[in-house]
């Protein structure tokens, strides 16, 4: 009965709406970007304002290898999505594993860098403003990498045990958007901390 009331005699054009996963992730990325902007602003504002050492110039080294690893993981996760869309699940698992591995190398690199800074150079979050802003900004990014790696590892497990099929490609795509964002943030962090700030 209600249909008779509502549906018009005019032919209704096909009703297509954007994916709520993509829209939701875009919103989350906006919010996360705002958090990172504040930490980046604080970092830039405090460059050279530390009243004691060590300074970035003394202790920071360019993390070239780990940066290459993290940035290339954007390509591997994209390939994983593409292969899942085409139902090539083995290839999808392979690329997902590659992504997790590259992300893990990046984290290991950060861990080694921090270990070196803390125990060889004596730089902690309490030492000076550089320590405060460095550990909080890089640490905030690293915590996002950890969250991304956990989710990618889950996806890898689902892919290996066969419960993730091409029907889930859209969901993996949403996850890959997050991972691309984490990589993009690293480009900014790299430029600010290791290029501008050094």
């Amino acid at each position, binding site marked *: 009965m*209600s*249909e008779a009331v509502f549906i018009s005699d005019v032919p209704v054009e096909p009703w297509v709406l954007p994916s709520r996963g993509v829209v939701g992730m875009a919103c989350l990325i906006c919010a*996360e970007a705002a958090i990172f902007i504040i930490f980046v602003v604080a970092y830039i504002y405090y460059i050279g304002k530390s009243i004691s050492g060590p300074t970035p110039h003394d202790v920071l080294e360019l993390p070239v290898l780990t940066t290459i690893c993290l940035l290339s993981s954007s390509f591997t996760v994209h390939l994983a999505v593409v292969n899942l869309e085409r139902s090539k699940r083995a290839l999808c698992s392979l690329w997902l594993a590659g992504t997790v591995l590259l992300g893990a190398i990046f984290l290991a690199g950060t861990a080694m860098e921090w270990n070196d800074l803390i125990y060889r150079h004596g730089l902690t*979050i309490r030492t000076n403003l550089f320590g*405060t802003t460095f550990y*909080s900004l890089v640490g905030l990014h690293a915590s996002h990498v950890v969250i991304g790696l956990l989710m990618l590892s889950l996806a890898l497990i689902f892919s290996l045990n066969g419960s993730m099929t091409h029907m889930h490609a859209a969901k993996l795509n949403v996850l890959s958007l997050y991972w691309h964002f984490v990589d993009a943030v690293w480009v900014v962090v790299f430029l600010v901390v290791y290029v501008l700030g050094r």
Partner: protein
Amino acid sequence: MATQTPEIEILNQSTPTEPRHPWLEVLHGWVTTVDHKKIGLMYIGYALLFLVIAGVEALLMRVQLAIPNNTFVSPQVFNRLFTMHGTTMVFFVGMPILFGFGNYLIPLMIGARDMAFPRLNAFSFWISAFGGLLLYFSFLGGDGLYGAGNAPDVGWFAYAPLTSRVFSPGHSTDYWTLAVLLSGVGSVGTALNIIATAICMRCPGMKMSRLPLLVWLYIVTSGLALIIVSPLTAAQIMLMLDRYAGAHFFDTQAGGSAVLWMHFFWIFGHPEVYVLVLPAFAFANEIIPVFSRKAIFGYPAMVAASVGIGFISLSVWAHHMFTVGLGAGANTFFTLATMVIAVPTGIKIFNWLATLWGGRIHFTVAMMFAVGFLFQFLIAGLTGIMLSVSPLDWQLSGSYFVVAHFHYVLVGAILFMIFSAFYYWYPKMSGRMLSEKIGKWHFWLFLIGFHLTFDFMHVPGILGMPRRVYTYEADRGWMIWNVIVSSGAIFQTIGTLLFVYNMIRAYFKGPIAGADPWDAWTLEWATSSPPPDYNFETIPTIRSRRPLWDLKHPEDPDSNYEF
């Protein structure tokens, strides 16, 4: 107006009459629900609870300030009162009540069965609710500065370096930080959810250009919340690192900057006012046309003005910081940016007036509150423009004039529109009508009380009475004004109690509302009151901005005039 058109009746054949459940089952149902209507109601109920608590805090402060040299509360307690009052009203009354209405109304208005992410919705509610509980747990758990009582006492904007460990020992400030952080997480979750719902869950025919204005304004307010709540979250993380890990973000001894906190806080703090006021505009956009019996005037201009307000509000924050000494360039920029925001706001006021113009106005209680809102929001905007002029701000900043100005916005505009929304949508939410007679008493008492309190609060501000003082000397000439201000609080309290009584009474004894008591035009009135769990038996297809008008007037549908 309470008659029902037969077309609507057809849509309502499935009015649910549920059998009674044992209370434990009912409780379990509410705690585990992911239904947008139940979550919306929980948001509203939780906000009302905190409204009462924070209102009592305001009352205590007004008692203390009514006469000079009063010793009703100690200075320490007074500091805690204004901190808790401000924090509670912004984070645990304003945000949840507006998100509650949004949660309840948006899926109904766009013809959807639920929000885009129902479980995220439940998570956001519970994490915010937990934040509020944590804030008030500080009364028990925080070992505050003064030993005995121990709620946060750093003011709602918690300026550094007062919040550092040295000046605020104990845990009361940590409770404040964590509570605000959790509320922020919940707000971001709900804002994200509202945007995804409004964009991705629309029923067939609901193009963006046909979206009810309420939904449009919620998109803008949620987008704004996404961008501005996160900086506050970031600042809270920094503050926690300072307090717990010994970092130096706001530690001036180690070269840190207290002004940086001010910037970060107000980057959140000013747009937050618009996050709160845009939903009030949203209610006005739905209620004023229905009771003027006219379609809203200037729909595209309303949308454009709302988006404009959203953008401009991001560039005005430092007008809270004119007294810091930002320099002539920054002062000029922020003065001008603040004045520019009056343009889109003015467009809205003129559009509402044009909607009223020539309409057949029905002065229901909802409409009376909406008209009160129009008038008071105009005055609040005008004092806002006064304060945006930086030289005048140097004179008035930190005085009761500022307190009067922003309470004019928060109470005179936002709270009035929230009351209006209650009178308008309570029948939909409960299935019962609120009493118009008690409502009129509520309106007039609250109106008189509001004007007594907040009109006269401007005066001691101009006379130099600083905000946050716990008392004052008798020879300052402020007493008479403070007596008037405090006496207004009595009227507001009685009005609010009548409102609460009205809601409780109507729930049991109010006349049955039916699906469409106001003869309205948006989709939420097409389903039964209260709506069934699934909202609509058949997902509707719409052809204009006023689908129920089309339904009730098939001979002259709106869709003939819209493109």
